[in-house]
């Protein structure tokens, strides 16, 4: 009986808590699903090219197909940019100042020299010596080595962010260019990719969309859903359950709705995130310098009201995301959880590349890269975070007997700047300099003589990569276990699907092990428990004694 009752109680609590939180939380101004606001369908939500064009025509004050500058059969991307900047005279100069362009970033607080071209991660590891491949996600054309001209205005790629046709693709290995001729893709697959129609793309440019941002940000780490866990192509056209803000039939937020931009500088940074924003809502036109992409910037410091105002007492310790993103990778795609480079190079009996696929159709093993694991609907790992991230850089010497943190999230319960955040922790085993105890740069793709993915020779690949990056290498490659943390901040669930109270307020709940957090129901104080039990026991004894005395007295009296 107890079993049924406890389940029933737990279900009832879940329902009540969810209902409670739903009353006033983040999406309190979101329309009910049956009251979707009337609006124009955006390019991202459109399945058909014609619909996208129609939407653009309704929203934009300019029809780019009517500009004679764009009525040209462009020979390549830079030629398109030349036409763009003939009107948008400052655009390229603005782009030049962004990390989207430079892949270079100095953290003002930690003084660490970061940016894509400098850090080494535990996915494809590093950019130097692999430019042609990696710069498929650069907002420019032609970055194929360290001699790239960062001052060239024509090298800026306008189309990758402003395409509305979904036909503009930059393939790995082309140094940021789309293919201008028919090419076999993937190589040796027997499949062919037609050249991009630059005139069509240029004449249909528009605002950025989930599709354009996602072309790179959904595919970080080498493929769809690989890197972040909370960013993948299921967000291109998501349902309400997956993200209440981006719901294509509801609020239909583009990325830029939160990641606002000014002079092409986009709010929100992975290198210097805002972990605790208590500045309240940001008024339009405000000149205040702050990250506009936080939850608080729209929802304010006191987002819960009425009988659920109690939830506001959680916000000093918990990030909004901790409750409002119950799990990541909740779409149709599995996210990569581990990558073990140390097993690469195992070829089939004919000496050819071997790929073994798992139940979800994703590669579990690839001779080029080693072993992988994947997961879907992943419960985050939680950690204190104050926004400061310290990276292990190429010159950082570490202890190879410990698991190496590629990046460390700083923060604690007592610093007044931290909140508990949900994170994806990506675990790997990767190459390092066994003598110097430092991470290494590895030649993976570009150089035909040394590239790991062409020769399967890790020593040769690291030797070349380090030489290319101007780093000393001892000549001995080892394998180090690593972890890299990613804050989870997308895939915000509908209000009724937030993490329920009992999921934390119980023994071994979600936040078990987080230091400095007192959670009723999860934490206990032994001496208070003993006093409580003693009082209850003495009360019981008292009641029994009282009853016994009255019974005896009654018998005697009778």
């Amino acid at each position: 009986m107890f079993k049924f009752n406890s389940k029933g109680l737990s279900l009832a609590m879940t329902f009540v808590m969810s209902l409670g939180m739903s009353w006033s939380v983040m999406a309190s101004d979101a329309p009910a699903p049956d009251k979707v606001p009337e609006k124009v369908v955006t390019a991202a939500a459109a399945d058909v090219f014609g619909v996208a064009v129609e939407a653009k025509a309704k929203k934009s004050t300019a029809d780019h197909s009517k500009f004679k500058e764009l009525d040209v059969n462009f020979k390549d991307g830079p030629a398109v940019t030349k036409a763009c900047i003939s009107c948008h005279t400052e655009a390229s100069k603005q782009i030049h100042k962004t990390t989207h362009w430079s892949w270079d970033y100095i953290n003002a607080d930690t003084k660490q020299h970061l940016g894509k071209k400098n850090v080494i991660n535990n996915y494809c590891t590093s950019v130097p010596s692999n430019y042609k491949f990696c710069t498929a996600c650069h907002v420019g054309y032609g970055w194929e080595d360290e001699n790239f001209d960062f001052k060239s205005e024509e090298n800026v790629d306008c189309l990758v962010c402003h395409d509305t046709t979904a036909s503009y693709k930059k393939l790995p290995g082309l140094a940021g260019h789309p293919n201008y001729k028919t090419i076999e893709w993937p190589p040796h697959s027997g499949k062919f990719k037609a050249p991009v129609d630059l005139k069509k793309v240029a004449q249909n440019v528009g605002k950025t969309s989930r599709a354009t941002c996602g072309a790179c940000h959904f595919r970080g780490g080498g493929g769809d859903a690989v890197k972040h866990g909370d960013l993948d192509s299921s967000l291109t056209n998501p349902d309400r359950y997956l993200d209440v803000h981006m719901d294509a039939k509801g609020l239909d937020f583009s990325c830029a709705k939160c990641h606002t931009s000014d002079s092409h500088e986009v709010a929100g940074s992975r290198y210097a995130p805002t972990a605790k924003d208590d500045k309240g809502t940001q008024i339009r036109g405000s000149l205040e310098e702050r990250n506009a992409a936080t939850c608080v910037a729209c929802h304010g410091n006191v987002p819960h009201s009425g009988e659920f105002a109690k939830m506001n007492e959680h916000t000093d310790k918990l990030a909004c995301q901790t409750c409002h993103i119950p799990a990541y990778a909740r779409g149709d795609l599995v996210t990569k959880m581990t990558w073990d480079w140390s097993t690469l190079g195992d070829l089939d009996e004919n000496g050819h590349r071997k790929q073994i696929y798992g139940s979800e159709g994703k590669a579990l093993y690839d001779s080029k890269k080693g072993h992988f694991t994947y997961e879907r609907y992943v419960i985050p790992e939680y950690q204190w975070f104050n926004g400061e991230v310290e990276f292990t850089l190429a010159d950082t010497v570490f202890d190879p007997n410990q698991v190496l943190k590629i990046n460390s999230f700083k923060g604690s319960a007592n610093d007044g700047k931290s909140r508990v955040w949900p994170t994806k922790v990506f675990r790997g085993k990767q190459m390092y300099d066994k003598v110097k105890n430092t991470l290494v740069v590895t030649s993976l793709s570009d150089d035909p003589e040394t590239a790991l993915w062409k020769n399967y020779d890790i020593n040769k690949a690291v030797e070349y990569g380090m030489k290319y990056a101007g780093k000393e290498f001892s000549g001995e490659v080892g394998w180090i276990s690593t972890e890299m943390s990613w804050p989870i901040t997308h895939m915000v669930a509908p209000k009724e699907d937030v993490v329920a109270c009992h999921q934390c307020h119980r023994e071994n709940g979600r936040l078990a092990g987080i230091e400095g957090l007192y959670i009723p129901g999860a934490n206990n104080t032994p001496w208070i428990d003993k006093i409580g039990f003693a009082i209850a026991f003495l009360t019981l004894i008292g009641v029994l004694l009282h009853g016994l005395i009255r019974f005896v007295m009654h018998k005697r009296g009778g």
Partner: protein
Amino acid sequence: MMKAVVGFIIGIVFVGVVGWNMADTMMLREVESPYGVEETAARIQRNIQGLSANGWTLSGLRNPSKAVAKSGTNVPPVLLVEACSTKYSGPILKDDATRILSILMPCTITVYKKDDGKTYIGLMNAGLMGKMFGVGDIMAGVAKDQEIFVTFDPKKPAPPLIRVQPGGGGAGGKAGDGC
């Protein structure tokens, strides 16, 4: 005499309470899987196909959480692996007295994730259910096969998930033949 009657009634109540409390674990069984939801379901499918000698075939794979997601809310992944064996279903469907048990067909094994992030397998206690409905001998065979379905060989690589469509709707001969 009075004491005996009271003792008898207390005994009945006690047994009833214990039976009620244990009913869920007696009729349904939950085991933890070392694999993810998709891989667990795929390994069960492979094991089912491995028992084709006992007449087992895959008759469907359902994803009820997908339907819930489409309605706008989140539930963790759930996959229902459906299988059927005419060796066992035949005798049950043949007899007027037991044909109503077709309501339990096809044999379904559920694979799901819980809030602890782990994957679980849910099974019906075929042996007990068979005894309750008077087909104990037949269902004892099903119970034995079920154990094989959920016994995994970690040395074997993960097989692909077979996205077999459940038997379609429609009437009579147009219905799917998943038992």
